[in-house]
């Protein structure tokens, strides 16, 4: 899978840590803890098996092994792996859902980042 544009490091939210608020930046993010609020990063986000995210998430690639309650916007790809759970809508350029994953919500495909503002053929 093509990696995000974040040149920096991978930030980590570990298991027993809870963040409430807003995260922004140009970085990859790995969540094993609990996050509530909103996330907007230009890198990739990986929500690990113990990760719980109650937030709207915007990132380049989004990989979910944990739980997400909220809307996901992946500029490239959304991967919902078998242990993953998504309650909310998603928008992505490409989507990958493994067997066993739980997804309740609407899915919307976006074209390339440049074309998102233009007309969108297909799914409405």
């Amino acid at each position, binding site marked *: 899978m093509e990696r995000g544009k974040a040149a920096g490091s991978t930030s980590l939210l570990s298991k027993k*840590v809870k963040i409430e608020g807003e995260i922004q930046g140009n*970085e990859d993010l790995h969540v*094993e803890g609990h996050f509530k609020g909103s996330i907007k990063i230009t890198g990739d986000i990986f929500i690990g098996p113990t990760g719980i995210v109650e937030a709207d998430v915007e990132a380049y690639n989004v990989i979910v092994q944990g739980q997400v309650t909220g809307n996901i916007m992946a500029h490239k790809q959304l991967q919902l792996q078998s242990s993953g759970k998504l309650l909310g809508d998603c928008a992505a350029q490409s989507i990958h859902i493994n067997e066993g994953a739980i997804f309740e919500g609407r899915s919307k495909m976006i074209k390339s980042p440049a074309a998102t503002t233009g007309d969108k053929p297909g799914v409405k």
Partner: protein
Amino acid sequence: MAIFGKKENEIKPPAVQTPAAAKAEPKSSRKDTSLDTTYVGKNLKIKGTISGEGSIIIQGSLEGKFDLKGRLKIAQGAKIKGNVRATDVYVSGNIEGEIAASERVQLDNTARIKGGIVSPKISILEGAMFDGEIKMSDRTVEVSKPASPGPTQPPPASAAPNKKETEL
């Protein structure tokens, strides 16, 4: 000095190594090594509250507050605006706000602090900038009570012993 130098080495590795490591290899391979240490990279901005247990290393910026049971390291270049509570606090970056530690606070030579410090143990290295007030009585810190019971507690005020004797 020797003690500070050693401590410094102990906490630094995750912060220094992860950027290179994370770039070179896929994320999953980091799993066992540093999953206990929350790390906020320098390109990340957080607004809100961080709470919980474990160690945290901040290189980015935070507007909000910390309420942590564990070790907090504010790396050089990091910017914190808000109150900080943790067991140990090591500062090499900037903090604007109150720092409360139940064990110790250490200010590195690159630290820039504007605000108060409440901690039973404090060390400040030459070069650190500190504008504010220090309180060292640990009675004012109610962050994590079980941290240091008994011997480290300063003797109570002069009025208290008399009362106790009469009670006994």
